[in-house]
Structure formats: structure tokens, C-alpha cells
């Protein structure tokens, strides 16, 4: 892989690595034949002219809008903890409890399981501000990572050099290194800080804190770190150091379990943890897709949401997972169907009448004929919908109309859902069971389960239930409930409020405003803006390693280019000799017992290759064209010389060894010294074996 592999593959902090594809390195392999590789989206049937480009643009717009909204929500979610941490850092040296036997080193542990690096970035940004609320509050920050602490000397050197760089930006003085103090001596930093205070000290804020941010604190060797803590704690009167430890461990007593009491006694430890778990997902999804203040271009359907909820609660509860899943579903949405190009706007009639777009327009016409809402179906063509062929302008108007209709409906649905939610929350706060929604409690699935159910089954029953239940409320309770709903409607954006004016005047508000129980899928062309029940490609996000490997070996052609896949879809399973060498060897592997005699294995492999050779030869003689699949074939002469046979045998041996090594590399073989010429199988019970 060479130079492109700068990443340290041994880094235990990373669970995955990105190895960029470098076509130059594999230039000896087949050249990619796809001319359209610059485009992200592949062209498909019934596509518009420039379809992929249009769809990519639409995707970019839609995703940008959605991402901004999600990031806003996420920033909001972590703001509270960020504020608390910043407050703690600023006040580390003020308000110290009097009467303590010695000064303690302030150590703030941050448990951050969900937000990743963004959280610390927020904290850093806030700490970087020089003035807050009119007060001067400078502090110096230094970010260090576990690799900076291989031993105490290097660790101290990184701390001291880092802070000196911050404090003495001009590089005022440096003597001869040999005559001066060691650069890992904390007294150097003390001297530098003293100099800084005399030179640049601010009257309001005489001693700016030195904040040391340690990333991935769990990875730092405790034996090194405890000495660093000790050395730093000896100079607290001259150096107001604050340690910020970023941890991912949720058990929140990592310090207690890894460090001795003598070290802990030097520290004043405080703990902060960010929001974690299901709450984050709920907030992000509700604020992005079920909030009347935001109108996403593509609404995700139950198929995607279910996968997201499952993956988030089962495997990985990080915020990045939500972003990745929604981004992928957007990509999939715009990639899968050419019609999604119409998401944000409709191309002009001229563009549509281009020859390349003819099949796209035709598809739209068909859709209109079948999808058309009832009033259009009563048009003259109602007797023969197949021949219904609207003009270009009619198509454009119809799509635009559907877009408006869909937006309106989605908005109504969002408001309706929120009103129902408010009602249910009201019921629960009053101690009633309310609807069949379990919003709180240990075993409940939370609000997202409710949303999934609503998306699948519709709102009808719940609206009716809410209505019946509300009727049973007492007079004062009902008026309280109406107040809650009134406040909600007041908080809606202006333009929405205008639309809902009518419903606000009604006595029983929700009945009217959420009278949208038919769901979004009834709008014509709904699939332009809604992913519906289309499943999420979760296999590509979270594949099963062993089964993918085995499947790849058993059916290599399914993983090749699409053309090959199509031909295989027709049902003809390739014969054994048509497979690549490794697959042939693997098939034979599956036929064997627990131990494999390598010579027998080779013999059986050779037999298959002989068949392959003769098959190819006969094919060549028939068509006179070289095989596209195999290298180094093409024996044209019918009679073979001794030399050629010898050469063939060597080739078979070489190919065997290569395939064997590939299987070995994949971990299917275990070497043993128990029996000569034998290897052990490591994989059994493959159901697919035939």
C-alpha cells in the first residue's frame, strides 16, 4: 500500500480506518470501464437528461439543509454541559474551601460518550473568549494526546513546551540549552509564567489559568500520569493549572479505579458527563423531522427510522451514527429513483422535451395516469387511463402542485403529531394513562417507537381515542389542556399560524388540525419527498464479516460488475471451473474433513484447472476469441509438446500456492505440525455449502 498508508493501523482508539483507493497502485489490474465515474450517482433507465447531476445538486441542497438543522439541535443538546464545564474551569481557583491542608490540583473529568470531538471543540471555543459578561477571563489551553505521554520526561516536556509556546509567543529569551535548565523541568514553566504575569498581566484577572486538555485519558499510562500529577501539584502556588480529562468510559469512576489514593489525594476531582443514550436520538429526530419550525426536503420513512433506532440503541450511541444514517438514506433516496430530481424544483418544459429525457417524461405520464387524484381522473380520459397523456406544462403544474400539497400535508401532520404529543404528556402529567403510548419508564421504547407505529398504522385510532379521553376530563382540566395547546399554537412560526387560524378558532382544536390521518403517501408523486418503507441498506453499514467473506468466496460473481450480476440473476449458477482459483480451492476445502491433506487438495484443484483448460481451449477453437476471464490462456495449437505440459504443471502449482496463501491470509487455514502435509480447517458448518 506504500505511502498512502500513513495512518497508524495499530491505534487502539480507532475502530475503523480509511484506506484511500489509489488507482495508480493497482494499475496492473483491469482498467475501470465506467466512463461516468466522476458522477456520484449512476445513470439509470427513464432518467432525465443530466439526471445524475440534477439529483446530486438536489441531494446536496436537501442534505445541507437537514444537516444544519441537526447540528443546531446537537449544539443545543450539549450546551448545558459545556456551560457547566467552562464555569468550573474558570472558577477552579476561586472559592476554594478554606482550611484544606494543601492546595489541590483541579482535575475535571469529562465523560463524553456520544458527542465525539465536537464537544471538546465547543469547550475550547468558549474558553478561548477573552471577555465574558464584561469580565476579563483569559486562559491558556493546551491539547495533549496519549502519544505525548510515553514516559514522564516526554510528558513533562510536552506540557512545558506547549504552554511556553502559548505564553511567550515572541520567543523572548532562550539561553544556551546546556547552561540552562532542562526543558522538562517545571521550574522553567514557572519562570515563564512569572515573566508573563509581570509583562502582560491583566489587572482584573491577574492569573490566567493554564488549562491542560488531555484527550483519550484512559489511554495514558497511569504510572506516568500519576507522576505528572504529583509534579504539577507541587507548584500550584505559582502555576494555576487545570486538568481537563476527556474520557469515553461511562463508568465514571475511572480515576478511582486506575489511580492510587496517594495521587487522588492531590487532586480535586470533579465530574461532568454529557447527555447520552436514547434521549439524543429522540431529540434530533423530533427536532428535525417532527417539528413545525422546520420543513425538511426529504422526510424519512419508517424503514430508515427503524434501522436507525435499532442500530443506535444496539450498537453505537454516538451522534455521528445519526448523521451518517440520515445522510446515507438521503443519498439512497436521490440515487435510487430518477424522479427524485424533482425534489426541489421542476425543470423547464424545454429541458423536459429534450430527446434524452423522453423516457423520463413518459414515466411521469404513466405515474400521473395512475396516481392522479380523483378530480383529474374525472377528466375526459377517465375511461382509458392508459392513454392519458398530459402536455408538458400539465406535467410541470401537476408536479408543482403535488410538491405544495405534500409540504402542506407534512406540516399539518407535524403539527397534528405535536398536538397529540402535548395531549398525551398532559394526560401523563395528570396521572392518567392516556393513549397507548408509553413515553416514560424503563422498558418503554420511547417516543420513537410511537412514531414508528403511527407511521405504519396511521393516526386515526389515536385521534379518536384522544378525543374520547379528553371529553371525559373535568372542566378545569380541560381548560388547562386547552391552555397548553394554545401556548403551542402561539409558538408556531407566523406563516404556519396563519394557515392554522381556522383551527385555532375551533373549540376542539385537534380534531380539525390533525385531520390528516390519511398519511403522506396519498399525495401524488409522494416518493419524491418521502422515503416511505424503503429499507435502509444496513448490511453495508454493519455487515457480518464471516458470512460476507464466505459468500464472496462461494459466489464471487455476485460481487463483480453489474453486467455479470445480471447474467447470473437469470439463474445459471456458474460451473466450478468458471470460478476464480481461490473460490475453486475453497469449494474443495468445504468438501474435506477436519484436516486437509495438501497433496490431495492440490490434486483435486488440478483436476478442476485441467477441465478449465480444456473448456477454454474448446471455446477458443469455436469462437477464436480469447477468454475475458483468465490470464495466460489461449493455447492455439492442438498438439502439446512435453515442454508445454511441463509449463502448465508449473503454472498450476503456482496458482495453487497463490490461492492457498489467500485462504491462509483470510484465516481459513491453521498450520499444524501434528501430521505431515496436513493443515487444519478453521471454518465449519457453512449452511451455504453445496
Amino acid at each position: 500500500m506504500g505511502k498512502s498508508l500513513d495512518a497508524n493501523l495499530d491505534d487502539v482508539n480507532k475502530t475503523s480506518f480509511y484506506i484511500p483507493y489509489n488507482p495508480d497502485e493497482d494499475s496492473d489490474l483491469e482498467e475501470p470501464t465506467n466512463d461516468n465515474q466522476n458522477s456520484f450517482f449512476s445513470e439509470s433507465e427513464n432518467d432525465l437528461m443530466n439526471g445524475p447531476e440534477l439529483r446530486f445538486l438536489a441531494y446536496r441542497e436537501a442534505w445541507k439543509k437537514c444537516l444544519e438543522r441537526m447540528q443546531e439541535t446537537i449544539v443545543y443538546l450539549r450546551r448545558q454541559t459545556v456551560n457547566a464545564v467552562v464555569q468550573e474551569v474558570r472558577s477552579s481557583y476561586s472559592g476554594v474551601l478554606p482550611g484544606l491542608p494543601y492546595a489541590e490540583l483541579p482535575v475535571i473529568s469529562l465523560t463524553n460518550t456520544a458527542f465525539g470531538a465536537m464537544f471538546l471543540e465547543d469547550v475550547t471555543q468558549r474558553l478561548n473568549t477573552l471577555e465574558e459578561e464584561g469580565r476579563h477571563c483569559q486562559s491558556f489551553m493546551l491539547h495533549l494526546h496519549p502519544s505525548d505521554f510515553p514516559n514522564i520526561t516526554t510528558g513533562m516536556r510536552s506540557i512545558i513546551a506547549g504552554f511556553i509556546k502559548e505564553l511567550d509567543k515572541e520567543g523572548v529569551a532562550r539561553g544556551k540549552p546546556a547552561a540552562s535548565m532542562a526543558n522538562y523541568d517545571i521550574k522553567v514553566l514557572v519562570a515563564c509564567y512569572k515573566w508573563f504575569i509581570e509583562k502582560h498581566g491583566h489587572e482584573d484577572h491577574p492569573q490566567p489559568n493554564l488549562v491542560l486538555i488531555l484527550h483519550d485519558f484512559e489511554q495514558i499510562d497511569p504510572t506516568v500520569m500519576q507522576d505528572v500529577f504529583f509534579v504539577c501539584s507541587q507548584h500550584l502556588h505559582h502555576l494555576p493549572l487545570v486538568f481537563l480529562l476527556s474520557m469515553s468510559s461511562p463508568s465514571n469512576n475511572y480515576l478511582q479505579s486506575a489511580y492510587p489514593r496517594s495521587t487522588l489525594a492531590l487532586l480535586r476531582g470533579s465530574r461532568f458527563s454529557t447527555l447520552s443514550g436514547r434521549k439524543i436520538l429522540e431529540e434530533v429526530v423530533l427536532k428535525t423531522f417532527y417539528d413545525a419550525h422546520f420543513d425538511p426536503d426529504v422526510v424519512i420513512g419508517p424503514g430508515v427510522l427503524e434501522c436507525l433506532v435499532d442500530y443506535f440503541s444496539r450498537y453505537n450511541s454516538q451522534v455521528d451514527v445519526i448523521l451518517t444514517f440520515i445522510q446515507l438514506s438521503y443519498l439512497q433516496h436521490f440515487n435510487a429513483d430518477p424522479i427524485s430530481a424533482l425534489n426541489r424544483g421542476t425543470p423547464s418544459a424545454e429541458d423536459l422535451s429534450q430527446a434524452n429525457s423522453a423516457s423520463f417524461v413518459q414515466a411521469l405520464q404513466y405515474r400521473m395516469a395512475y396516481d392522479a387524484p380523483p378530480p383529474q381522473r374525472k377528466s375526459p380520459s377517465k375511461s382509458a387511463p392508459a392513454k392519458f397523456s398530459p402536455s408538458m406544462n400539465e406535467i410541470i403544474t401537476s408536479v408543482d402542485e403535488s410538491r405544495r400539497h405534500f409540504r402542506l400535508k407534512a406540516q399539518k401532520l407535524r403539527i397534528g403529531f405535536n398536538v397529540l404529543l402535548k395531549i398525551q404528556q398532559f394526560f401523563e402529567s395528570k396521572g392518567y394513562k392516556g393513549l397507548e403510548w408509553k413515553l416514560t419508564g424503563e422498558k418503554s421504547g420511547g417516543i420513537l417507537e410511537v412514531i414508528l407505529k403511527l407511521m405504519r398504522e396511521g393516526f386515526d385510532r389515536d385521534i379518536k381515542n384522544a378525543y374520547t379521553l379528553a371529553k371525559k376530563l373535568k372542566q378545569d382540566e380541560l381548560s388547562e389542556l386547552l391552555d397548553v395547546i394554545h401556548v403551542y399554537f402561539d409558538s408556531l412560526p407566523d406563516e404556519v399560524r396563519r394557515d392554522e387560524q381556522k383551527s385555532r378558532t375551533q373549540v376542539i382544536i385537534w380534531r380539525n388540525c390533525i385531520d390528516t390521518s390519511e398519511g403522506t403517501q396519498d399525495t401524488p408523486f409522494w416518493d419524491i419527498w418521502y422515503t416511505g418503507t424503503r429499507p435502509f441498506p444496513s448490511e453495508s453499514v454493519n455487515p457480518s464479516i464471516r458470512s460476507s467473506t464466505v459468500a464472496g468466496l462461494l459466489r464471487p460473481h455476485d460481487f463483480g460488475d453489474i453486467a455479470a450480476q445480471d447474467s447470473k440473476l437469470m439463474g445459471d449458477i456458474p460451473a466450478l471451473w468458471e470460478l476464480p482459483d481461490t473460490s475453486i480451492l475453497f469449494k474443495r476445502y468445504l468438501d474435506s474433513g477436519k484436516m486437509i491433506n495438501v497433496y490431495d487438495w492440490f490434486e483435486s484443484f488440478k483436476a478442476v484447472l485441467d477441465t478449465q483448460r480444456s473448456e477454454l481451449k474448446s471455446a477458443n477453437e469455436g469462437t477464436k476469441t480469447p477468454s475475458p476471464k483468465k490470464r495466460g490462456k489461449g493455447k492455439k495449437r492442438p498438439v502439446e509438446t512435453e515442454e508445454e505440459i511441463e509449463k502448465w504443471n508449473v503454472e498450476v502449482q503456482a496458482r495453487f500456492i497463490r490461492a492457498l496463501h489467500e485462504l491462509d491470509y483470510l484465516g481459513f487455514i491453521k498450520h499444524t505440525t501434528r501430521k505431515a502435509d496436513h493443515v487444519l480447517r478453521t471454518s465449519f458448518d457453512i449452511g451455504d455449502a453445496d
Partner: protein
Amino acid sequence: MAQVLPGYELFSDELTTLISTFPPPFIYVHDQESLPITCRVTDALLNNISLGESSVQPGAKVKHTRVDGISCFTTRLFYEAVINGLVGHQADWEEGCSNWAPEEDLGVRWNENLDTFLHGLRAVHRHLCKQNGISSTSNTASDKGKDKQSQYDNVRLVIVVERIERLRDNLPELIVPLTRLAELARIDVSVIFMSQVGWQDIRPPFGASPDPYYIDINPPAKENVVKYLISNFAELSKRFDETVNPYHPALQSLYTHFVTFLCDVCFPFTHDQQELQYIAAARWPGFVKPVLDRYTSHGEDGEAQEAMSWAPHTEEIRMRLAKLFNPSLNSALEALLPRQTNATEWSQTHEPPPNILNLPPLQANQAISKSTADKRSTLESGSGMKNLPKMCKYILLASFLASTNPAKSDLRMFGRGLDEKKRKRKFTQRTTKANVGPAKIPQRLIGPSPFPLDRMIAILGALLEENDADTWIGSREFLIAGEQTDLETMRVGVLADVMELTSMRLLHRTSPADRLDGPPMFKCVVSYEDCLALAKQLDVALNDLLWDPV
């Protein structure tokens, strides 16, 4: 001479006499319980001697410095700390933080090796002699060491080395030269080692070092600790300017009672004065708050503030306070001694509600416990392993089982054949009882044992099959039993979670990361209690799955 800390009278007499008359070249101070305090006492004492406040032999000048074995983690640091410390040299940033050097030759280096260090010490000695007006020239300096008893040169250096046990670990090569420093440098120098460890554990082999002059510090007696804590009060009350503060001189008698009781409760558990002072600092502001509240409320009432103000507290108030707060001393000890929380935080959570003395005693007690519980619950919300993803919880459980159960028991515990499961378990229990000999130590006392990843995945599969299989989405028709479990347990997400847990230090990887051969080995470092809590969240009966249940 300044006041000597209670309990240190003998020590300070002995050391003062030694240092000011004829000090042995090598003294070893062994203090098991309260080394920081002893260091402080020694510092103060040497300061006094060097300032000439003690009865020193006429004309003798003592210069001292203290270094510690943790901060001096390289020989260079040690040499620099000693030489700069003896001269009293401070680093100056604008001059490039240069080390001390005598006027005559700049650019000499004394931090390279032991030899240069000895030269440095002699230069320091010369310099100090000159500074103090003692005639000393370089050619006589070499003669001095040989017969220093007769030709006394009047500057004595004292080097205190703290935490010598760490110096032995970090820089073992320094121990022998330090014990023989007077011989090597041929000047009047005395080295004092201070440590919690006895000399017999430090002593270099083959008798390379001479035997030291031993001084052992006895563990502090309770009455001395009480005296020490009370003596701190006066100093603290000087720091406050406000009229209402917890360390007002008028509260001293109350503090005396408080400290006495605190020592009664805590002394059996720790003899460390600093720890007891720490607990006192955490509890005192809350303890005295009702009195302060009363004072301020009276102050608001009228002019008679000064009159009633700091009248001696009646016995009744003292009893009431003791009754209200003394039970919390135990919890303070439990929380603060292992530093589960810090003193500031603890004193905030245990701060009593205002004007507690106005309430009847029973209600006051309830009010205190309620406010403490409220504050604690707000602190502890949203923490813990509750929010881990489900698969992580299962992986932790599976690893815990793999770490505690013997590998041989897996088939019996998790294997599901055609036989009834229950019968199998009964059978296994009988065999364990038969096999367990008196010498066998239960696994939970040995600690977790390492296991290969494959074994954990297999146990995980069994756990998932049993408890979680019905929640998998998109389950296709799987013909073979367990096929889907096989598929689910080998997903990238599972392996990524294992790595994630390792980076969180909930699992510990025992095999090196660069070994490709064979499966990686792990250890589960989650406690039984945590696992039990996880199992409860997942509805798994953990005790049924343990080979040797607690």
C-alpha cells in the same frame, strides 16, 4: 525559635542538635504515617538553623535544600535542583532560565554526571564561603576534606531527599553516591533521606553504603493530632476579613469540641493529620452554619448585633449541633478518605438548610437528610453504564462470564442439545461440589482470567439466542438453528463495540495489539455489582449462568 508542632518536640531537638553541632554525614528519617508533615517540620527547622535562630556552633553557617524523588526523574533534574536550591538560585525567563554558575567561570556544566556534580557542590561551597565572608581559596579547599574536624570551614550543606523509594526506582545509580556524598565531595555536607519505607528496603547490596544515623518518627498520638488541628484554627481565622465567617476567633471553643469528636470518630481509620484536617475542612462550614445563620438573622433584627454576637455558645447549642452533624462524620470519612468526592463538593452537598436551629430537633434532622439526598440525586443523575448500547451490555456480560467461568464449563452452562437444560445444570452443580477441594480459591477472589475473543463471541451468541433473538429486525427465513445468531455475532458492529469497550477500559486486552496469530485475548474489568446491574437491565439471570455463584 518558632513553635514546634505537637508530637515533634523530640525529633526537632535531636535534629537541631545534630545539624548545629557535628552532623553525621548520612541521616535516615523513617516515618510511616505522616511523611508530609515531617517534611514540613524538617524544613521549618532547617530554615531556623540557617537563619541563625537556633543555637548553632558559633560561626557555622548552614545552607539546606530539599528535593524529592518523584520530581527529580532524571539525574540532570536532581543535580540542578540540588545546586540551584543550595544557592537559592531562581530561574529567570529573560535570561533563558540559566542554571546557577559562579561569577568567575560561566559556561561550566554541573548537570552532566556525578563527577561534574561533585565539582558543582564544591563550587557552591566555595561560593557560599565567600558570600559569608569566610576566607576560602581554591587550593585550600582540597585539603579541607581530609581533616575537616580540625580546620572547620564554617559552611555546612544539608541536602534533604524526600521519597527516596522513588529515587531508588527511577535513578538507582544515585543512592550509593548520595550516602557517601561527604566522602566524595570532601566538604562538610550532610544528606538526610526521608521515606515511608525503612532503610532495609532501600539499602544497596554488598554494603556499598555506610549505615545511616536512624531517626524513626512514631505514629502520631491522638491528642497530638487534636492539638495540631486546633492550632490551625488561629492561622485560618487571620485569613478572613468578613465579620461572619466560619473561622471567626469566637468559634474556637466550638471548633475544639468539633475536632475532638471528629478525631474520636476518624482516628481508628487514619492517623494522617492531613487527612483528618481535610475531613474537618469539609465538615466544619456546614457544622457551624446554623450558628452563623442565627448570628446574621439577629444582626438583621436590630442593633443589638454586637452585644449578643459572639457570646460563648451555650452547652445546649453545642449538644444540638453535635447531635445533628456527628452522624455525618462517618459518611464524610467513607466518602473523603478514598476520595470518592472532593471536600468542596462534599461540603456543598451536605450543607444544612438555613436556620436549622429554629426547627424542632426531629424536623431538623429530617430537613438535613432531605436536602442532602436532593443534592446528591441531582449530582448523580444521568451517569453510569445505563446508557451503553444494548450490544455493549451483552458483550460486557459475556466477557464477565468468560472471565469468571472456567472454559471447561461453557458447554455445560450454555450448550443446548436435545437434553433438558435443567437436568444438565443440576448435574454440573453436583460435580462442582465434589471437585472443590479446600485449597481451591473462588474465581472472584483470584480476579478475572483472560479469555480469547472467540470464546466470548460464542457465549455472546448463547446469551443473545436466549434473551434477545426476538428483537432482531428483518430476520429472514433461517433454516438452520442458530444461523442468524452466528450472523449477528460476527457483525462489524459487535467487533467495533469490543474495541470501543477496550478503549473505555471496561475490557482489558491482554495480548499485544500487533500480534496477528491467534485470537486476541481480553479480560473483563467490570465488577460483579456492575454486571449484576447490567444483567438486571437486560433481564438476564446472571447468577444462573455463573459456574460458581456468589
